[in-house]
Structures are given as C-alpha cells and as structure tokens.
C-alpha cells in the first residue's frame, strides 16, 4: 500500500524479530498507545533484574565491591545518555523521574532565579500539561506574562506569530520537539536558533521526540532538554534533564538532602558538583541502569531503521484511517514533520466509547485529552481517540484497528 518515502535505502528493521524481544506481545494485544508509554524489551527488564539480584547496593556512598559495581553501572548509564544526546559532559546529565520532574526542576531552580515581573515566557498551544502548568504557576508567582504560539489548520506552529513574540525579547521559550496529540515534529532547530538570537533561554520537551528522533544538544543549541525513560522502552521512574553546564552550575539546587552536598554543618551547606547537586537522595538506580539498557537496545537496532519503519507504518495507518467515513485525523499529513501519533475524531461517537469497543477487540488506544486540554479547546473537541506506534508496530495491528473501528460504526449506527 505504501512504500518508504526516502530514496536512499534505510537500514532494514525486522519487526517480527523485534517483537520477540517484547514478552507482552505474547498476550495478543494490539498495542497502539506507545505515545503514552512504550513497551519494554526483555533486555531492559533483564538489566534491572541483574542489578537487583547480583549487585544490588546503594551507589556513591560505600567503598565495597557491590556498591562500586552499582556505581559504575549507574554512571555508565549516564554516559550512555550523554552519548545519546551528544552532550559535552556527563556533568550535564541529571537523572529525574521523568520529563515532568525535569521541567519542574528548571521552573523551580532556574525560573525562580531568572524570571522577574513583566518578563515574557513563550510557550505553545500544543504543549503537554507538563510543559505548560509549571510555566503558568511560575508566571503567576513572578508576575510574568505567558504567551502561547498558536497552530495553523494543519496542526503546525504559526511561525509568524512565534517571530512576533520573539521580537518582544522573551526570557524563556519552551516547546515540544514533537506533539503528543498531533504528531507534529516542530522545526526545533530553526526555532531554537531564532529564540537564542532573541536572547531567550530555550527548553525543549523531548518526551515524544527522544524515543523516535533522538536529539543532538550541541547541534540544536538549546539550553535544556527533557525526556522520559518509559516512552523509549526504558522503565518507569526515570527521566533526564540535560542542561548547559554553565546554566546548571549557576542554578541553586532544587531538591536537597543526601548526595547533593559536599559538606553539611548545622548552619550552612556546601553543595556537590554537577550533576550530583541536582540528584538529592537515593537515586532510581535500577531504573537508570534500565534506561541505559534501553538506549543500547534502540541504538542496536538503529534510530534510522526505527524512523523508517515508523514512517512506513504511519503512512499505512494514515491512509487506512482516512478511508473510514466520518473519521477526521488531526495534525499534518504523513511527511518528514509528522510522527506516528494519529489522533482522530469519529463522527457521532465519543472517544471513550471508541476506546471501550476497541479494547474489546484487543486494540489498545488512548482516549481523552492526552494531557493537552488547551490544544483540544483550540481544536474545539472535548477529547480525541489516539493511536500511536513505535518500532514494534505492525501493519497487522493497524488492520485490527481499522476493523475494530468499523465495528464501532456498526454498533453506533445500528
């Protein structure tokens, strides 16, 4: 039905071989909710089990072998993240629980230091709540202005509006690399360059970008980049904040307590060097190691191969869904600026009813606001149904989705 769009042959991905790494597919579900959370391959689970059962110990604090092994593996995971992002130093890699905590860290530690009354913060109307509410709260506390770049009819950011906002010299520009509702890949290189030229600090929410496109912090030139392990085949409970070293160094700590100190006295504390200054308390050790294994896994298959596979599946799904009468897909058409997140509206049927009937066909999709309520207000729908794919998604799963959607229509037009 569709063929790969790229003229140069991408490295091939053998989806059936990939699926064998994911025990959950033995249950027979068609899992089309990877934008919510991905499935985890056994390699990731195994890395965590190995930690728990063969070298389980706390890190950094102790001088015995188990603890040294745990520390080495934990720090090796940090190095994998550094390489994945092409960051200059592991000191710039801060482990957090996920994208949400990463962004909050910046809103608290950088925001409280730098944002003043009357400052302008620029966000977009397509942001996930996690890259919107923290700025709303910060703006409220500081008496700053928060403005939103709108989208056009294809679900792309209005660059004309963005330019006009930049002319006002914003303190911060925060936007997602890829929208979790529209699938739009924003022109993040160009937007970052323009925002930096306008003197803004730039944060990119990579929750939906990192798993599919990766990210090169030095090439893009932003100031902060945040992503979650669980959306890229890693475990729950782990995420990353990358920050430019000078910025992280000049920021006060966020969480405080064990491990983020050099020396504590009753009346004052000297803080540790990066990245530990931002990693208070016992870390999510098994989870960081699991994230390292997920990066190994994805890189072993190759991000290019994954991207090519997803592009093919997306095109296939887009065409198949478009043929369903009364079904309207949000976001741009297949192409280099759209990933495999397909949110749609089926006329006359509420997304919750769609999802319930799909579930009875063993097809897992998201229904609701996808944590993007302002975007849905903008699109003027109370909710959407969302099918999203990843490296393990097959045409067969898309076929099952389409068949189930026909059943939805049958039931609701009975």
């Amino acid at each position, binding site marked *: 039905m569709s063929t790969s769009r790229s003229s140069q042959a991408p490295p091939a991905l053998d989806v059936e071989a990939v699926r064998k790494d994911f025990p959950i597919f033995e249950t027979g579900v068609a899992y089309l909710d990877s934008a919510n959370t991905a499935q985890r391959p056994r390699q990731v689970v195994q890395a965590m089990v190995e930690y728990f059962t063969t070298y389980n110990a706390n890190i950094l604090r102790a001088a015995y072998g188990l603890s040294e092994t745990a520390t080495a593996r934990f720090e090796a995971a940090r190095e994998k993240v550094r390489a994945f992002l092409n960051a200059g130093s592991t000191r710039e890699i801060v482990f957090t629980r996920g994208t949400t905590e990463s962004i909050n860290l910046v809103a608290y530690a950088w925001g409280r230091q730098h944002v003043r009354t009357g400052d302008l913060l620029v966000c977009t109307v397509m942001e996930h709540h996690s890259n919107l509410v923290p700025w709303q709260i910060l703006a409220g506390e500081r008496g700053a202005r928060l403005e939103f770049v709108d989208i056009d009819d294809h679900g792309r950011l209005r660059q004309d509006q963005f330019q006009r906002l930049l002319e006002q010299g914003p303190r911060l520009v925060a936007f997602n690399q890829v929208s979790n509702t529209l699938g739009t890949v924003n022109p993040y290189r160009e937007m970052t360059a323009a925002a930096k030229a306008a003197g803004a600090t730039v944060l990119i929410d990579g929750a939906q970008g990192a798993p599919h496109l990766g990210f090169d912090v030095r090439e893009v030139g932003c100031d902060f980049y945040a992503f979650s392990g669980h959306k890229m085949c890693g475990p729950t409970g782990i995420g990353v904040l990358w920050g430019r070293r000078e910025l992280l160094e000049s920021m006060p700590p966020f969480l405080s307590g064990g491990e983020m100190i050099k020396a504590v006295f009753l009346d004052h504390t000297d803080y540790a060097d990066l990245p530990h200054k931002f990693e208070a308390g016992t870390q999510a050790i098994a989870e960081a190691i699991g994230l390292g294994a997920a990066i190994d896994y994805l890189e072993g298959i190759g991000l290019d191969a994954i991207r090519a596979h997803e592009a093919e599946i997306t095109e296939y799904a887009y065409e198949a869904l478009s043929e369903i009468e009364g079904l309207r897909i949000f976001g741009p058409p297949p192409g280099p600026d759209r990933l495999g997140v397909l949110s749609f509206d089926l006329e006359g049927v509420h997304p*919750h*009813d769609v999802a319930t009937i799909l579930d009875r066909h063993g097809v897992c999709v998201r229904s609701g606001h996808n944590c993007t309520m302002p975007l849905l207000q903008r699109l003027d729908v109370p909710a959407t149904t969302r099918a999203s794919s990843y490296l393990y998604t097959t045409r067969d799963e898309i076929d099952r989705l389409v068949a189930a959607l026909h059943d939805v229509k049958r039931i609701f037009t009975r």
Partner: protein
Amino acid sequence: MADDQFYREFILDHYRNPRNFGRLEGPDISHEEYNPLCGDLVGMDFRIEDGMIADVRFHGRGCAISQASASLMTERLKGMRLEDARKISKDDVLNELGIEISPARLKCALLSLKVLKVGAYGLANVDEEEFE
C-alpha cells in the same frame, strides 16, 4: 458479539434520543459535574414542589454511557420524593444500566448520580470515592 451486549440497544437509544434533555427556566436547583478524564459533562435542573421532584432536565456532552445514564436518571427522578431520590445508590444506577462497567468507565456511568448527590442534596463534601 460482546459489544452489542455492552452497548445495548436501549443505551444507544437514550444516547441518541436523550429524554428530558435541555434546561428549566428558573430551576430550584441546578448543578453540573465534570469528569476530567474524558471531558464528560452532565448538568441537571430541578423544579421542586412539596419535597417532590416536579420536573427535571439534563444537559451535557460526553460518551454514550454518561449521557444515557443521565437520561435514564431523569426518567427515574421525575415525580419522585426528594427523600427517596436521596436513597438512590451506585448499585441502583449500575443495575439500571444492566451492563458490566469497567473501572475506567465507572465515573462516566456515575456522573449523573454525582450531580444528584452534590447538587440536589447539597452534599458538597461527598466522598469522591463513591463515584469511582
């Protein structure tokens, strides 16, 4: 197939042809509730006479379950004494729907009950757990 059991004909009928849909002018009681998970909204207007629900209308938007449940609720409530309405339970609502509701959809099914309890009884501090 199973879904025909779940989305039974009378539920779809109440969804497509909601009974007592609309607003009352100058209602004695009016209240709305919102389900943040899916954006469902149900509101009800009541006219009370001598402790009796003389008239009731609902408005809202949302899934078949929440809207059919509200429509069914208005049919049940009309002409009922407030003190009897107070006794309507979660189980009553679910029995009337007569389908097996999964945890994620329970809030949809019970949204209209919540409107009744919080609005008509003024149980502002009603425990959320009752509607989950």
